[in-house]
């Protein structure tokens, strides 16, 4: 039942879009109708799905790598004020640089293949993960920290039995921000230099003025993003059942 309203909203928007292309007789070259887009997809379904899988793989592996690097990084930052003062400003600076500006260099360094895209994804994903993990661990209530102190718990216990668990709901907030950025990061990488992936399809279709194909690729990107996002929301419900943050964002 909960899926009914979003689906209705989506169908409504598609209907309006379709109506607009008919009523205003817009050139398909500028704005193709939904039917044109679907037709374009059905012309090359195998090819488009293959490209979608490539982009999906880049986004997911970069996202996974960001967790693997980001969470321990946050642990180090919370654990040591020296490390925090050394690396935190650097992290902020890294995040402040527009990723589009870094992309060409990353492609020069890592080539046209998948690794440059994965690195782009890591660059956009890692910051929200580090920040949410670190701030979640820091916001552990003082009474719980004192309880652990009164048990003479080690730092390891304090981190892995208390702070990390307490941070989990906030980590998921960071993850949900990151997962949508992941797809964007992959596409930026593909825009700058690639021979595969949905971003590549979009730039290539621009060259041949195939707007319908570009729209089909964008629709696939949107489907990937939304699916990944809701998968995470589902995982959150399973893994963090005590949290009150069961809303979508």
């Amino acid at each position, binding site marked *: 039942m909960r899926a009914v309203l979003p689906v209705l909203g989506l169908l409504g928007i598609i209907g309006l879009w379709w109506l607009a292309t008919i009523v205003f007789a817009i050139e398909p070259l500028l704005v193709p109708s939904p039917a044109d887009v679907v037709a374009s997809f059905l012309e090359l379904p195998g090819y488009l799905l293959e490209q979608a899988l490539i982009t999906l793989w880049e986004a997911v592996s970069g996202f996974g790598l960001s967790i693997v690097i980001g969470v321990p990084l946050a642990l180090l930052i919370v654990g040591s004020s020296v490390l925090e003062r050394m690396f935190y400003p650097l992290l902020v600076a890294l995040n402040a640089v527009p990723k589009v500006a870094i992309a060409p260099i990353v492609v020069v360094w890592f080539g046209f293949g998948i690794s440059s895209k994965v690195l782009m994804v890591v660059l956009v994903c890692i910051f929200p993960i580090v920040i949410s993990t670190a701030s979640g661990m820091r916001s552990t*209530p003082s009474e719980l920290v004192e309880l*652990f102190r009164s*048990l003479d718990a080690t730092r390891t216990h304090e981190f892995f039995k208390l702070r990390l668990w307490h941070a989990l709901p906030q980590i998921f907030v960071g993850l949900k921000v990151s997962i949508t950025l992941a797809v964007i990061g992959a596409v930026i990488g593909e825009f700058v230099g690639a021979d595969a992936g949905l971003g590549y399809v979009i730039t290539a279709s621009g060259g041949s003025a195939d707007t319908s194909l570009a729209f089909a690729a964008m629709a696939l990107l949107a489907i990937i993003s939304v699916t990944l996002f809701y998968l995470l929301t589902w995982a959150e419900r399973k893994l963090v*059942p*005590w949290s009150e943050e069961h809303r979508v964002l």
Partner: protein
Amino acid sequence: MIRLSGVSHSFDGVHALDGIDLEVGEHEFVAVIGRSGCGKSTLLRLVAGLLTPSHGRILVAGSPVTRPRRDVSVMFQRPALLPWRTVLANVLLPIEVFGLGDHRERAHELLELAGLGGFEQRRPHELSGGMQQRVSLCRSLIQSPRVMLMDEPFSALDAITRTELSLELQRVQLAQPRAVMFVTHSIDEAVLLADRIVVLSPRPGRIHRVVEVGLARPRALGQVELDAVSRELRGLLVTA
């Protein structure tokens, strides 16, 4: 079991405690009472080894307190339960941190005695405030402490639940007497539970008077004999 001699404590320029001399026997229940800000929580934290005194010595079971120890349990004002753990896992936390063997049976026993049988697999947020504090009591009992330190453990509860838990604590102490230091600002609680009541005067916290409660146990709330002691305490708190 607990011996404080000449204990003073200051932090951030605040002189919190001054020249505290106090002994608590092996099976003795001592209540510490005083107005807020008289340093009674600080006193408890010093004995717990969570703070180090600026001056003086604190001994527990004959050895100086340098850090928190396993034979001393601390119960706080709030239940301080881990929301991601079940009731059972919360009770078992000290055992896990200490790296001891399987205590599940003991945990079940304690929970059963506390009237929480059947709630082992629930999470804290499914429990009322009073039940949460009972879980917290079970958690501080599972490490079989020789000394129990309690920092206003019932003050966040409603009056009825408070009374229930006070009587519960009396039962626990009767079944297996320990050295207890119980910080409170409730005269009724102190009179009901304690063998001796230490009245602190504020800023800096000094021992104003120690009152012996020579009444047999179990005591009941509203018992006439408690009134005289209550009246004396009320007077002392005014002059403190």
